[in-house]
């Protein structure tokens, strides 16, 4: 059974390592500030005991007042998982650091989130639309994008 790592245990470690970067933690979900997502992801990937070597998926949710970017991290070695989230309140220009340099599996998925949700991933090697064509107006998965 993929063990859902208790967030309280990890958040205590993160709090000492990266003071002030934690927003919320409950169940097996940790919410961190967008500016520290790369450092925390890197810490979770490279710290023995966590070893989150496998990025299962990346997605984003539009909660009207903020965007939530969701990362599901898995360790194939220890068979445990963790949901890592970050929130962007800037609707005009939401920006999150890219994690492609940690997990190459993020490459197309970040492009998909950028294309459909309009979140920019800073440091992405090739951030352009993937499903829709260049020149398409808007980002369809946003709640204010109405279907015709």
């Amino acid at each position, binding site marked *: *059974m*993929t063990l859902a790592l208790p967030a309280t245990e990890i958040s205590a470690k993160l709090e000492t390592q990266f003071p002030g970067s934690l927003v919320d933690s409950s169940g097996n979900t940790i919410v961190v500030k967008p500016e520290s997502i790369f450092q925390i992801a890197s810490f979770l990937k490279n710290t023995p005991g966590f070893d989150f*070597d*496998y*990025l*299962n*998926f990346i*997605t984003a*949710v*539009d909660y009207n007042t903020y965007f939530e970017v*969701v990362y*599901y991290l898995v360790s*194939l070695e220890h*068979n445990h998982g963790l*949901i890592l989230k970050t929130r962007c309140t800037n609707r005009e220009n939401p920006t999150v650091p890219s994690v492609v340099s940690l*997990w*190459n*599996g*993020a*490459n*197309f*998925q970040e492009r*998909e989130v950028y294309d*459909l949700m309009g979140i920019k991933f800073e440091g992405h090697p090739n951030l352009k*639309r*993937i*499903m*829709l*064509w260049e020149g398409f107006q808007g980002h*369809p*998965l946003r709640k204010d*994008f109405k*279907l015709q």
Partner: protein
Amino acid sequence: MTFKTEPFVVNAGPQHPSTHGLFRMRFTLDGEVIQDVEPVFGYLHRGIEKLAEGLNYTQDIVFTDRMDYLTSMSNNQAYVLAVEKLAGIQVPERAEYLRVIMTELMRISSHLMTVGFLLNELGAFMTPLLYMFREREKILDLFEMVCGQRLTYNYLRIGGVSQDIPEEFLPALKRYIDSLPGFIAEYDQLLAENEILLMRTKNIGILKRETAINCSVSGPVLRASGVNWDIRKADPYSIYDRFDFDVPVGSVGDIYDRYRMRIEEMHQSIRIIKQAMAQMPSGEIQSKVPRVLRPPKGEAYGHIEAPKGELGFYLVSDGSTNPYRFHVRPSSFINLQVLRELMTGVKIADAIVIFGSIDICLGEVDR
């Protein structure tokens, strides 16, 4: 005298027989050798994730059928699993067994297609593929018997399945399951000892273990690279913890290993189906679920080992009848991440075979 040379760009697709759909690869070539490849997606993008937000939970099952249309039953299973997690719904025993039988049949059918098309791409044009189609046809007949459909089954329901199997189903399934191992063995013998097949697949398109993990690859492609990771074992869903089966793991990670994985997995699926048939109890096939389902606020991720890799659904509920967010973790799309790693430096004739060995379905890549 020196010749001036420059890289040459070739488009494979979007209309190309080897892409099994609409997909384009932009090759930059130096002679016959690939310097770079850029996949171009989106020709089949229908906006399923957005459309699903406009319909209720039960209606959304039909969208999942239309993602990877070669594995509709598995897609149904992943989606209803996520909804059941979200709403805390129990599934009756008999329905769980029916689901296992259907999804394992689906796996056999999908792997038959993969192997057939792989050989097609190797130049064994159509003959092996049509043998595979013949065997797949029998699975489709079984599905037709169960739910009246041959492609988009829409058989699984939230909390159960749409209908019980008819009386003649189990004998027909038994006849099929008994005949299948002989067919696979015969076929495997004809092909796996074929000199041309071995030369074109062994030690070509090697995917290293670390690259596979780093690129979030899943399913037979990941296991061919030597990673023992199968959601049915790692995070058992449904009733998979009750069955005795092995997870085949490759050692080299080349095209041949990926071919091997599919052949072995078909044998394992037969083992699971046999056990499921023997253990299946009688009883209810559908638990009591409100006609208009309103799961409590929250989120859930349900994932299964689909034939092509890990297929998952991340659902967010705001307490209404429709999902607030409907995200698919598409195995085909994410597996394509390794294209550049696999294809750079190989000859263009091998690129098509490598692409076939990853096994994707464009309906799921573009959604």
